[in-house]
């Protein structure tokens, strides 16, 4: 049974990756949004000039961009399943519903991480050129991005499944998703701030915020796992 689930998980994930590589729908929409947001930030902060230490607002700017960027991708993640009734064919196959959740979640996570990794150098180019860089080791930034993206993708996959059949799915997903993301967003910004600014006690602060991020991930993944059978069959 476990090997069957693993085989089905790989099949769904591979199918999603192949289709995304062919259409670039999620990556393109998320990537373009991220770059445009950075450009708008850059224009908005132009007048502040050297007086503003961009590192102080960088964590907030990054996570606002990532949260809204992920919404675009999540809205697209079930479009292929909805087209031509494919979701019915998937549900007709002998697959446990949580397997579908984890496969779709993994795909969304990979796409989100890919765009995050690609957009950070753009942010650094636009804002950190000739300025002081990140104080703590950069891998801390990688840790918070990975952990927070797990939460974003987990909750987002569940909500995208719930809203895919609704008429105003774009706005409905945003209205439900953003408030649910508040605790994760707060903790991710806190951890990113500690990683970027550094200073005495910053590593301890970083890990205390990361505990919140990890807790959110665990709780939300368990909730999504428990609810998915009901949600996808509704």
């Amino acid at each position: 049974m476990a090997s069957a689930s693993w085989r089905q998980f790989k099949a769904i994930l591979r199918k999603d990756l192949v289709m995304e590589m062919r259409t670039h729908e999620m990556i393109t929409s998320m990537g373009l949004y991220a770059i445009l947001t950075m450009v708008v930030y850059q224009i908005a902060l132009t007048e502040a000039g050297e007086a503003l230490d961009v590192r102080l607002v960088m964590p907030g700017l990054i996570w606002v961009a990532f949260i809204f960027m992920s919404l675009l991708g999540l809205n697209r993640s079930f479009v292929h399943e909805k087209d031509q009734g494919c979701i019915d064919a998937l549900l007709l196959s002998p697959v446990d519903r949580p397997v579908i959740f984890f496969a779709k979640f993994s795909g969304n996570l990979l796409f989100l991480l890919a765009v995050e990794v690609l957009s950070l150098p753009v942010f650094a180019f636009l804002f950190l050129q000739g300025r002081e860089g990140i104080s703590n080791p950069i891998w801390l930034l990688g840790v918070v991005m990975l952990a927070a993206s797990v939460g974003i993708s987990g909750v987002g996959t569940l909500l995208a499944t719930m809203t895919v059949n609704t008429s105003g799915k774009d706005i409905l997903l945003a209205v439900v998703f953003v408030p649910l993301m508040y605790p994760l967003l707060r903790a991710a910004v806190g951890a990113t701030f500690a990683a970027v600014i550094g200073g005495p006690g910053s590593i301890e602060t970083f890990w205390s915020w990361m505990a919140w991020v990890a807790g959110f991930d665990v709780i939300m993944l368990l909730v999504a796992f428990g609810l998915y059978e009901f949600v996808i069959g509704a």
Partner: protein
Amino acid sequence: MGETPLTGNALEVRGLTRAFGARKALDKVDFDLPEGAFLSIFGPNGAGKTTLVKILTTLLNPSAGSVRVCGLDVVTDAVELRHKIGLISHNPLLYADLTAEENLLFFAEMYGIPDAEERVRELLESVELDHRRLDLTRTFSRGMLQRLSIARALLHRPDILFLDEPYSGLDPHAMDILDTLIAQIRGEHTFVMISHDLSKGLELCSHALILANGKVVMFDERDAIDEAAFRETYRATVGMGVA
């Protein structure tokens, strides 16, 4: 292609009720269908036909009553039952951005079919699409999509095939091909078909059922049906409209 011996009942439906809020899409539906039979289901729009097929194919749970398909309960034995059923819908249920071969290989993995590549090749040949196996299905005509949809539904050698208005939107040539394919596999499966086409449905079926307002208005073996009376009953139910 069917592997289970055709004995007993393929469908056993007892007191099946499905409500959406206060509205009952199905109301105490009862009938049995022997294995190897071909059931045509008729009824006006909103009669409950699609809801019935969704429940029989485990896509929807009943609100009340019991439903056994191939001897398995649609709620408690759903995962096991899904190995035994196939669905051909008016929607192709295929991924537009995968090739014909990739679509079938994907579903072969979902069903855990051994020698999947061999089975996919065999089915693509049988639906005369082997020459288009590497083309994205978004480039296929409606008839080609329907043929590939048949291959997808037969991939795991189901005991019972559900056809939800399979002729909808097909040109005459594609309808002929679908007729031929159904004739080829007729003796190997139990069929349940939803149709608005009385002539086609009665031509193919061994049993016929008329649903209206979520209730069974008529259910009988084809040989026992007086066609004129059946048509009259059908016309009357269409006039009954939606529940």
